[in-house]
C-alpha cells in the first residue's frame, strides 16, 4: 500500500515537472456532449501546435454564473466562453480585459482584425468603443420546413413561404384537427415554438428595440402589428386548444421535439438543428430558407448569434489566453482534407455550424456535414441579418419582452398593454443601470488620480496578474475601460 502511494506521488511529481515549463491556461465553456468533444479536439490541436502553453478545457453548466462568482472572488479562468449578452453586462462592470491591446500587439488595428469576419458577427465583439471578446462558434436562425408535411397538405415541398401572408396561409393549410374531438393534432406554425426568438419578432417586422440608446419596444409603431400577429394565432386556433396541444411537446433535445416529431411543420431554428435531425429523426425531409418577409424592403431577414471568448479580469495568464483566442479565431483557408482543418473551421465543422470567417477553406465549404450550410452563409451575409442589441441590461430587457410575448399569446394582456408595460419597465431598468455606470465613473475618476502609478504597471499584453475583487480590481477601474456613459 505504502509502495503504491509513493509510486503515485512520484508519478504526479514527474508529471508536474514535465509540464512545468508550459503555462497552463484554464478555459471554461458551456459545451456539453458532442459540442464539448468538438471543442476538446480543437483545444488538443492548439496544444499540439506549440510548446509554450497548455490549455485546460473545462465544460461547465451555468458558465456565466460561475465566471461571475470566480471573477468576483479574484480567481477567474483565463478564458471564459460566454454568451454575447454576458459580455456587454460584464464589460459594463469592468470585469473583462479588452482585447484591443492584444490585437495591436499583432500589428493590426481592431477594425482591421475584425474585418476577417462577417460583419454581423464582428460587430458583436465590440461594445462602447472596445473589442471585449473574440468569436467562437456562431449561428444563424432560419425558417425550417418539413417537406413531407408540405406534400401531404398539397403544398409544393420545395417552395417555402416567402412573405408573412404566405406563412399564415401555409400554416392554415398545414393545420390538422381530430374530426371527432376537434383537438389539434398538427400545426403549420406556432409563434411560441420555440419561444427563444420572440424578442427578435419586432426586428423581423421592421421595428426597433433600441433607438439612439433609448428603449423603443413600446414607442416604435412597427412593433404593435408584430404583437397583434402573435395574438392572432391564439385567437384563430383557440387558447385552450393551443395550450393542450403545446403541452404535449417534448424537450428540444429529444425525439418528442415538436418539429422533429412532425407536430409542427414550420419553425425558426438555428444552424444547430441539423445535428438534432441526424440524431433524433434521421431521414427527416426538411428545407431551410430565410425568414419570410414581414416588412416592406426587409427580405433575407436572419437572426445571427455567436458564442464569445473573453478574458476575465484577475486571470493569471491573459497573454497566453489571447494566444488561444487568436488560434480559435483563425483557420487554414487552404484546407482540402479534414485533417487540415484548423482552429475556427475545425470546431465549426465538428459542431456542424457555419464559420464566421468571410473566407472558407475548400474542404469546409464543400464537405460540411450540414446540407444547407451555403444558405446559412448567405443569410449571415444578408444586409438584414441582425443580432441582439448591445446593452448591459439586455437580459432584463429580453425577459420583459418574453414576458410581454407570453402575456399576449395567452391573451392575458392586449398587445398595446403588454408593450406599454414592457416599455415602462425597461425604461426604468435602463435608467437605473446608466445611473449606476455614471456613479461608478464619478467614483473611479477620484480614485484614478491616486492610482496613476499603479495603473502604469497593468499592461494587458504582459503576463501580469490583475488583482481580483476585494483588492486592486476595484481601484483599477479606468474611465477609458468603462467608456462614455450614454
Amino acid at each position, binding site marked *: 500500500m505504502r509502495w503504491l502511494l509513493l509510486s503515485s506521488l512520484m508519478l504526479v511529481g514527474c508529471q508536474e515537472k514535465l509540464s512545468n515549463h508550459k503555462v497552463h491556461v484554464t478555459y471554461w465553456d458551456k459545451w456539453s456532449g458532442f459540442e464539448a468533444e468538438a471543442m476538446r479536439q480543437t483545444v488538443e490541436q492548439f496544444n499540439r501546435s506549440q510548446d509554450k502553453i497548455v490549455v485546460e478545457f473545462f465544460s461547465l453548466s451555468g458558465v456565466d*454564473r460561475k465566471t*461571475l*462568482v470566480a*471573477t*468576483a472572488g479574484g480567481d477567474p479562468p483565463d478564458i471564459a466562453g460566454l454568451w454575447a449578452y454576458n459580455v456587454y*453586462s*460584464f464589460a459594463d*462592470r*469592468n*470585469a473583462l480585459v479588452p482585447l484591443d491591446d492584444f490585437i495591436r500587439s499583432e500589428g493590426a488595428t481592431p477594425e482591421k482584425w475584425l474585418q476577417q469576419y462577417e460583419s454581423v458577427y464582428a460587430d458583436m465583439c465590440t461594445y462602447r468603443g472596445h473589442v471585449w471578446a473574440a468569436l467562437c462558434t456562431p449561428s444563424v436562425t432560419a425558417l425550417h420546413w418539413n417537406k413531407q408535411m408540405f406534400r401531404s397538405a398539397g403544398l409544393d415541398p420545395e417552395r417555402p413561404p416567402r412573405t408573412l401572408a404566405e406563412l399564415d396561409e401555409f400554416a392554415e393549410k398545414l393545420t390538422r384537427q381530430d374530426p371527432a374531438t376537434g383537438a389539434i393534432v398538427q400545426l403549420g406554425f406556432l409563434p411560441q415554438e420555440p419561444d427563444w426568438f420572440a424578442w427578435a419578432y419586432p426586428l423581423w417586422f421592421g421595428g426597433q428595440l433600441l433607438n439612439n440608446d433609448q428603449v423603443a419596444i413600446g414607442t416604435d409603431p412597427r412593433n404593435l402589428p408584430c404583437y397583434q400577429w402573435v395574438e392572432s394565432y391564439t385567437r384563430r386556433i383557440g387558447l*385552450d386548444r393551443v*395550450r*393542450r*396541444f*403545446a*403541452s*404535449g411537446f417534448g424537450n428540444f433535445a429529444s425525439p418528442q421535439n415538436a418539429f422533429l416529431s412532425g407536430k409542427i411543420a414550420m419553425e425558426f431554428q438555428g444552424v444547430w438543428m441539423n445535428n438534432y435531425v441526424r440524431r433524433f429523426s434521421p431521414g427527416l425531409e426538411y428545407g431551410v430558407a430565410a425568414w419570410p418577409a414581414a416588412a416592406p424592403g426587409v427580405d433575407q431577414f436572419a437572426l445571427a448569434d455567436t458564442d464569445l471568448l473573453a478574458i476575465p479580469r484577475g486571470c493569471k495568464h491573459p497573454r497566453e489566453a489571447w494566444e488561444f483566442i487568436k488560434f480559435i479565431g483563425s483557420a487554414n483557408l487552404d484546407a482540402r482534407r479534414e485533417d487540415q482543418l484548423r482552429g475556427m473551421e475545425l470546431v465549426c465543422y465538428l459542431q456542424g455550424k457555419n464559420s464566421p470567417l468571410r473566407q472558407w477553406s475548400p474542404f469546409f465549404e464543400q464537405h460540411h456535414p450540414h446540407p444547407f450550410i451555403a444558405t446559412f452563409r448567405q443569410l449571415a451575409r444578408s444586409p438584414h441579418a441582425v443580432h441582439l442589441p448591445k446593452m448591459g*441590461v439586455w*437580459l*432584463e430587457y429580453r*425577459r420583459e419582452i*418574453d*414576458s410581454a410575448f*407570453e*402575456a399576449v399569446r*395567452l391573451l*392575458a394582456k392586449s398587445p398595446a398593454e403588454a408593450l406599454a*408595460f414592457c416599455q415602462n*419597465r425597461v425604461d*426604468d*431598468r435602463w435608467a*437605473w443601470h446608466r445611473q*449606476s455606470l455614471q*456613479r*461608478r465613473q464619478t*467614483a473611479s475618476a477620484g480614485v484614478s488620480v491616486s492610482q496613476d502609478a499603479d495603473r502604469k504597471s497593468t499592461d494587458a499584453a504582459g503576463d501580469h496578474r490583475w488583482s481580483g*475583487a476585494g483588492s486592486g*480590481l*476595484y481601484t483599477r*477601474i479606468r474611465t477609458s475601460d468603462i467608456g462614455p456613459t450614454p
Partner: protein
Amino acid sequence: MTTAEKRNLRNGLAFCALWFVGFGVFTLYPVVASLYYSFCDYSVLQAPLWTGLDNYHRMASDTVFWISLKNTLVYAALALPLGMLVSLSLALLLNTGVRGMTMFRTIFYLPSIVPTVASSLLWLWIFNGQFGLLNWALRPVLGIFGATPPTWFSDPAWAKPALALMSLWGVGNSMVIYLSGLQNVPQELYEAAEIDGANAWRRLWHVTIPLMSPVLYFNLIMGIIGTLQTFTTVFVMTGTADGNPARSTLLYALYLFSTAFYDLRMGYASAMAWMLFVLIVGLTLLATKLTEKRIHYAG
C-alpha cells in the same frame, strides 16, 4: 474556577471552535455583509457603493417585485394549510395499530427524501396537460360533467395550485413530527373521553388537537418559512427565471435569484432578502400572537 473546570472549558471551546469558524465565515459574515450590501449599488463584480435607502425605495415602485410577492403569498396560502392538513391526516392514519404500520410509515416518508430536482421533473410529466398521469385519471371523471381537466403549468390560473399540490410530495417530514407528537398524547385522556361518550371526532377535536397544538404551531412556523422561500421547484419546473406561464409562478425567491445572478443587482437582491426576512418575522409573530391562547404545553 478549578483547574479541572478550566480544562473542561478549554476542551469544550476547542471542540466548538470549528463550528464557530464555520458559522462565522459561512453564516454570520454573509448575513451581515448582505445587510450592508442592501444599502449599496453592488453588482458583485465591482466594489459596493453606498446608496442609502435607494434599493428599498425602488422596491416600492417595482411592479414585478409586487407580482412576485403576491404570487408567493397566494402560493403559501394554498400550500401551507393543504400541507398541514394532509400531513396531520396521514399521521393520524399511520398512528392506528393496523398491521404493517412500519412499512406504511416508510412508504409515506420516502418521497420527502427524493431530491427536489428529480421529483420536480417527475411531477412535470404528471401535470402534463396532454399526456400527464393526473389528467389521464381526471379526464373520465370530469367528462361525466362535461368538463375537461386543466393544463396545469401551461395555464396561469392553474400553475400555482399545481405547485401547491406538488408540495404535498414532501409532507413526509412534518408527518413524522406529527406522528411523534401523537405518540406523546396520554392514552388515559382518550379512555376518559370515551367513557364520557366522546366519539372519534370529539376525541380528535377535544383531546388530540389541543395536545398536539405545540407541534401544530411548530409546523406552522416552519411551513411559513419554507413556503415563502420556495425556489428549486419553480426554477426546475418552469425552466426559466421568469416564472412562466405569464409570471404566474414568479415566486419571491426566484425573482431575488434572477435579480442577483442574472441582472447583477446584488445590492437590490440583498434588500429583497432582508424584506423577506422582515416579512417572515412579521408573519411568525402574527402566528404566535394569534395562537398563543390556543397552545397547550403538557406538564
